[in-house]
């Protein structure tokens, strides 16, 4: 899995590519938590390149969500592939996260997301 961070205007975008599993999720966790702790107003995780996610990957995203609530950082996901989306739905987490279809939508709307409640 590859993780890349893009710092845009008031938004950090974390591009993750490949499988997010027990082996690779610590890399996503490190990058994601660092951006949330950096006190930027918004952090987005680009899931469009994630071909697989397991419970450790989901736990990483939940940890990011919880930290973002503490730091009052807007936090969202975008570009979820059907398999990742269905796993989140099964775990009933699709309504907990703020999820956008595309990067364009995420960049447009993340500024109006309440840091605690999502859209």
């Amino acid at each position, binding site marked *: 899995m590859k993780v890349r961070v893009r710092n845009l205007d008031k938004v950090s975008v974390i591009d993750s590519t490949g499988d997010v599993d027990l082996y690779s999720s610590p890399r996503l966790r490190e990058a994601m938590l660092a951006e949330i702790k950096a006190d930027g107003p918004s952090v987005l995780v680009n899931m469009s390149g994630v071909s697989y996610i397991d*419970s450790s990957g989901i736990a990483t995203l939940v940890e990011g969500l919880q930290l973002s609530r503490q730091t009052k950082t807007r936090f969202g996901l975008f570009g979820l592939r059907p398999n990742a989306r269905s796993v989140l739905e099964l775990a009933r987490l699709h309504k907990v996260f703020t999820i956008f279809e595309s990067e364009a939508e995420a960049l447009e709307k993340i500024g109006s997301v309440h840091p605690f409640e999502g859209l």
Partner: protein
Amino acid sequence: MVRIAVNSEPRLLNILRGVVRFCARKAGVSHSEADYLALAIDEAAANIIRHTYGGHHDALMALEIRSLPDRLEFILEDWGPKVCEDLIRPRSLDELRPGGLGTFFIYSFMDKCSYDPNFEEGNRLKLVKFLTRKGAGCNNESSSAKSG
């Protein structure tokens, strides 16, 4: 029947997932269902690495896949301390917290889940998925691999 043994290395989980997908597809399982089965086995193997072996990466675990006309059987073996089956239950989805979803996925995607009480050297977990479509199966092929 396919049998593969790997070290308890997290980076080798993708090998197990690949074998599961291969056998599932060969048994006539859809792509998405094969992905779910791979996820269930991945979670079971990850539990072995994290809990049974305490994160040590130099222990051994084995996956055996039997393709039968009406079902796929997945048998995961480890040689660690005995697992207390009563403690392995899916957690409530009502609580928002990291972790604890692995067992939930195993129970969600498999039809049967049981430990073999007669396997004295460690733990032998048997997971069964009944097939809704009759496929070719991979019980005519036998292969094994050891990595680590």
